[in-house]
């Protein structure tokens, strides 16, 4: 099991509410800005996209890389973060 960051653990610990997109694991300032430009200004909107892609980690990772220019590591981290959040709260 890969070690998760504090950010990941914080996000997965509670309902996301209105948290900004930068609260997601793997999404920092730069990627957050790119996502906001595309209209994904809140974490729950990205969650919406994840759900639209049927919670498929690969598809979501690919989408995130295409949309925000994220690298594989960050995209996978975000994907995993959302997956665990869904497992806990969805």
């Amino acid at each position, binding site marked *: 099991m890969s070690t998760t960051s504090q950010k990941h653990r914080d996000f997965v610990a509670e309902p996301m509410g209105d948290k900004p997109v930068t609260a997601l694991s793997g999404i920092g300032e730069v990627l957050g800005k790119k996502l906001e430009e595309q209209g994904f200004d809140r974490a729950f909107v990205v969650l919406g*996209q994840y*759900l*639209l*892609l*049927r919670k*498929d980690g690969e*598809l979501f990772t*690919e*989408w995130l890389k*295409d949309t925000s220019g994220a690298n594989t590591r960050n995209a996978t981290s975000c994907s995993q973060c959302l997956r665990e959040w869904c497992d806990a709260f969805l």
Partner: protein
Amino acid sequence: MAALRNKSDQEIKDLLDEYGIKHGPVVDTTRPLYEKKLKETMAKAKVTVTKPSPDRTFYREDQEEVTYVTYQTPVSIDYFSCLRPVFRPHVYNTPSSSSYSKPTPVVKSGGGVVKKENTTSSGRLIPLWVQFLVFLILAGFLYFIFTNMESAESSPFNRIQ
């Protein structure tokens, strides 16, 4: 293929299903991703299908008689830089000659493609029907020998003269 961008959402969805790509609903946020995936898959599919095998045309030009030359992969590479490893039989030696002529006319790409699909799908070095033919000939030959031997009285294969 026609521009994916101009297709309706339903058509994109149908194409995704056709290629067996796992997907969710086609919405404005998911559409670019699916278009990209379709483009990649279609490009890959096109590469594997439209690769004719040049050695089939060689067969045709050879005399109908029996021995076929080895076809080495460099020949095919000269014609088309094939990505897929091409399956090549080494030597064909058949006793019967006339029955060996290829039934289907070898047209450059179309026939060649069909032929290619046939051989590679069975994955044999010598086509199946050749094997059957050889087997039947061998069996018949052995039977012929057997019946014509000076056999003992108790042989079941004695003909009633």
